[in-house]
């Protein structure tokens, strides 16, 4: 469904992505692990053009794109097929939860209001916020805001949803509710590309894990392969730091 080849991106002198190849198939739940600065967030942002890659090609289904030279219309049409969930939620402060979810449909796709609101309500129900339609972001907790963010991405019915460290800005008590929603939609077959530090999600829900370090993909495989049988030294070092014991328990 999504194939990315040879993505390079530098910020000034700092080369953050040094040639990334990645492919995602329908129904995949892919988790990207790595230390800060490994380029995982940049990679995600290059995929939906929040950053412009210096180099790289992508195929979204049938459509081929150059990541550096894509035009506005191409970018816009790609964005409609990709959902994005931000680390700090980025809900529209001046819109209610329901409006947040429906804006992409009514304005972005010129959908009639009733239809968009029905979809919006369904999405908000799915993330457990059926009693919060008319609340503004300031009136919601962090976990609730992030769930609205997920609903907003889900409502677009995208091919893939990109998650950029969705729980990193949350208090520990609230992480669970967001991970719960993510697990739910993963089990429903949503194709997801997730950058996270939540190992439980990688171990329990992902079907592929990618480990990135310093701008390159070091290793990739199934969760079991990566967590209980890592091949690369860098992967082992990372896992040692993150998990005291990284054996996969059944």
């Amino acid at each position, binding site marked *: 469904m999504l194939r990315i080849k040879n993505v390079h991106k530098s910020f000034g002198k700092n080369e953050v992505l040094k040639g990334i190849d990645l492919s995602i198939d329908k129904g995949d739940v892919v988790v990207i692990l790595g230390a800060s600065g490994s380029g995982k967030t940049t990679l995600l942002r290059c995929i939906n053009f929040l950053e412009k890659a210096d180099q790289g090609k992508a195929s979204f289904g049938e459509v081929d794109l150059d990541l550096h030279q894509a035009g506005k219309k191409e970018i816009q049409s790609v964005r409609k097929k*990709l*959902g994005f969930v931000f680390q700090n939620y*980025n809900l*529209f*402060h*001046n819109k209610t939860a329901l409006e947040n979810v429906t804006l*992409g449909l009514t304005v*972005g796709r010129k959908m009639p209001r009733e239809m968009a609101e029905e979809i919006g309500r369904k999405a908000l129900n799915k993330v457990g916020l059926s009693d919060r339609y008319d609340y503004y972001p300031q009136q919601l907790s962090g976990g609730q805001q992030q769930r609205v963010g997920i609903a*907003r*991405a889900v409502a677009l019915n995208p091919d893939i949803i990109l998650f950029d460290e969705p729980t990193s800005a949350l208090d520990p008590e609230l992480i669970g509710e967001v991970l719960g929603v993510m697990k739910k939609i993963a089990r429903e077959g949503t194709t997801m590309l997730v950058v996270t530090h939540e190992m439980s999600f990688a171990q329990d829900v992902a079907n592929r894990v990618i480990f990135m370090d310093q701008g390159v993909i070091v290793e990739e495989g199934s969760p079991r392969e990566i967590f209980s049988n890592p091949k690369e030294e860098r992967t082992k070092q990372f896992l040692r730091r993150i998990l005291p014991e990284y054996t996969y328990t059944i």
Partner: protein
Amino acid sequence: MNGVGEFFSWSRFVDDIPRLLPYLPVTLGIVAYAIILGVFLGMVIALLRIHGQWFFQPFLRLYISFMRGTPMLVQILIVFYGLPIVLQALGIEANRWDKIVFVYIAFALNEGAFLSEIFRSSILSVPTGQMEAALSVGLTRWQAYRRIVLPQAIRIALPSFGTDFIALFHGTSLAFLIGVVDIMGRAKTLGASTKHALEAYLFIALLFIVASALLRLLFHFLDRKLSYT
């Protein structure tokens, strides 16, 4: 109490009111033109400064620093004496123009500069994540501005805008310097002709106080109304 009556009398005060009030529209007209043209100009400049190509920037910065760095008085005189010359070079004959047009232009140019800085900083205060989220759900930049960024920016700009508005109101009194008779100018001519200026100035002062208070209330109300957004 004859001595004090020489300087101030309530009957002269009351007499002056109907002489002054007909000129209030002149003052309000200057404010209206300046604000409407200034908001438009200010928004265009702000967006150009944020998104426009690099070659716009030096000109815009020069314009803004001139407008903010020179006294309003000087700007009015420059526009009044200088603009007809510039226009003549372009083939436009400005000799017959009513003086007040120059006042409108001078204040509009000034407001445009000040407001552009207010708008620019308030737009930049809106977190970039708002625009990114809007783009990520498939909105165009323009749609994102219109529905998400600008509404929030306007709320942020409101206090500074209110202050600027009130300052504009006070500043219109300079129009008399080129002979445009606004309410302040009328007070001066009344003072010259009746040899008693204090009553007229007192009435104007009271008018300005009331107007400023009303404006402050208006902006306070607008600010409350935009809350919970």
